[in-house]
């Protein structure tokens, strides 16, 4: 009879082994990940002190200011375009080759390497338009980079609004735009904002696109007076410290890495919380 079982090993045993291996894989992935992030947080946090943050010279203050301005301007540029595109896709577009093409384009934009965005920003904004290395050039470059993210999150938020609300509004004699502005957008706002926060987080951590478009290493006056000023950005600062600056003590480097990671992860966590708390709404 046992010859009937053509498998050498009982499938139940195979299953146990396989599941054990999956656990191992899980540990192999998560442990070093947790270890290294933990180590960084530990080194960073223990190097961090108020003086280091607040010092205008050699401290993190200029980079924090610069990154803040940069990501805010990025969001300012990306939001109207991204939300507009999302409204187009979810409210106006009728399925067809054009929409297919738009989606393909957005997917590809999401996949373009960030350094290529940097090249584009250099060629288009810095050189051709003539903005030079400036806040505006950097923000526009980053805005293009985060655009697919803004569009997809905003579109998802718009799609979550029940069809019934739109029809209810239309049936009351609202025009399409009135419906969108008064019913759809206000209710999709939390989702859209979540997407914007995620985009800000992404923009805050990107280095390659700002390499040639905006970042300076040291400024006398870290607060930009106009959008045509250069700024100091945190990821660039970290990159320069790690690869170019000899005399900077390790503590400063670790602290910068820590602040950058904390900022990016913090924004992501905020976005997640916003999303989960606001998703629990009844329509």
């Amino acid at each position: 009879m046992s010859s009937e079982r053509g498998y050498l090993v009982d499938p139940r045993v195979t299953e146990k082994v396989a599941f054990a291996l999956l656990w191992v894989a899980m540990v192999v992935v998560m442990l070093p990940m947790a270890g290294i992030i933990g180590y960084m947080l530990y080194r960073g946090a223990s190097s961090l002190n108020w003086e280091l943050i607040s010092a205008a010279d050699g401290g993190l203050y200029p980079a924090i200011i610069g990154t803040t301005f940069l990501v805010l301007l990025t969001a300012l540029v990306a939001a109207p375009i991204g939300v507009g595109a999302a409204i187009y896709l979810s409210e106006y577009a009728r399925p067809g080759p054009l929409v297919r093409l738009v989606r393909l384009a957005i997917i590809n934009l999401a996949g373009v390497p960030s350094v290529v965005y940097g090249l584009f920003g250099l060629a288009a904004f810095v050189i051709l338009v003539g903005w030079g290395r400036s806040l505006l050039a950097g923000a526009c470059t980053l805005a293009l980079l985060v655009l697919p993210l803004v569009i997809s999150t905003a579109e998802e938020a718009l799609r979550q609004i029940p069809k019934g609300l739109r029809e209810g509004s239309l049936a009351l004699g609202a025009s399409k735009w009135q419906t969108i502005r008064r019913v759809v957008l206000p209710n999709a706002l939390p989702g859209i904002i979540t997407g914007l926060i995620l985009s800000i987080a992404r923009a805050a951590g990107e280095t390659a696109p700002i390499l040639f478009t905006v970042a300076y290493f040291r400024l006398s006056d870290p607060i930009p007076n106009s959008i045509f000023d250069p700024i100091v950005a945190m990821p660039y600062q970290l990159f320069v410290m790690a690869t170019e600056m000899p005399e900077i003590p390790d503590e400063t480097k670790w602290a910068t890495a820590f602040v950058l990671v904390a900022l990016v992860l913090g924004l992501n966590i905020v976005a997640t919380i916003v999303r989960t708390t606001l998703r629990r709404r009844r329509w």
Partner: protein
Amino acid sequence: MMKRRAKRISEWIIERLIQVSGVLGIILVLLIFFFLLRNSLPMFQERSLSDLLLGEKWSPTHGDGHFGMLPLLLGSLYVTVGALIIAIPLALAVAIFVAEIAPRWMREFLKPAIELIAAIPSVVFGFLGLLVIGPWIAEHVEAIRVGQFAALGSVMLAFMALPTIVSICEDALHNVPRDIFNSSLALGATRWQTITRALLPAARSGIIAGCLLGLGRAIGETMTVLMVTGNAQVMPQGLEGFLKPIRTMTATIAAEMGETAVGSTHFHALFTIGLFLFIITFAVNTIADVIVRRSEKDIA
């Protein structure tokens, strides 16, 4: 009456603007392509495509400049393939684990945790590789003398691409109708048999797409490889190449753009690399998209 007409006109304008931003995606892709092309065309006038793609020497400032991109292409290939070899099995394992095996509380913790890993800036990975991991390996591993080599880039990239692959594969597994899982169990399959024989085949396209997107991410990654792979523009040789410094296309752009004079041959050469990168990732992403779409159709 007038007021209403004014309202209509402003609505008309707004709706046009929305339509424009809708198709802006297409325009942007074309613009990026156009700018890359425009800035690399002078390169093609100077060198033939085969010189560029097959030339084995990249030394832009030597003499008239040598612009053979083969070492860089191979460098990218090495690092990327290495990354995928590490990332795909692990990512699949993690995806299966999260989708089918992890207890609920663990799944609810793991999914966001993995997404958070994806959010860590690449410059931070590079920083860690350069300051901590690389020197540690050079110190402890006999065969490796310099802590900056291709395989280190692969490992770092693997961890960076992992979340992308995991989350798409997990979605693909999750989207397989529950009935398929249940009916396999109802036929007397163990859970593992169900996973390997029913679930994975059913989620196949989604998984392939996830891997392709991971591939796209790995090819395009810049800062990490710039910081940890040593950037020697050698032709990598065999398996040993993984343990030697290497230079990728992305790192070349990031490292050299600062030196070049605008309009110089070197400047155009760097844009040419950018153009190739763009074309490669465009192809990869488009294929992935086609596959995803097909898988959506399959399941529906």
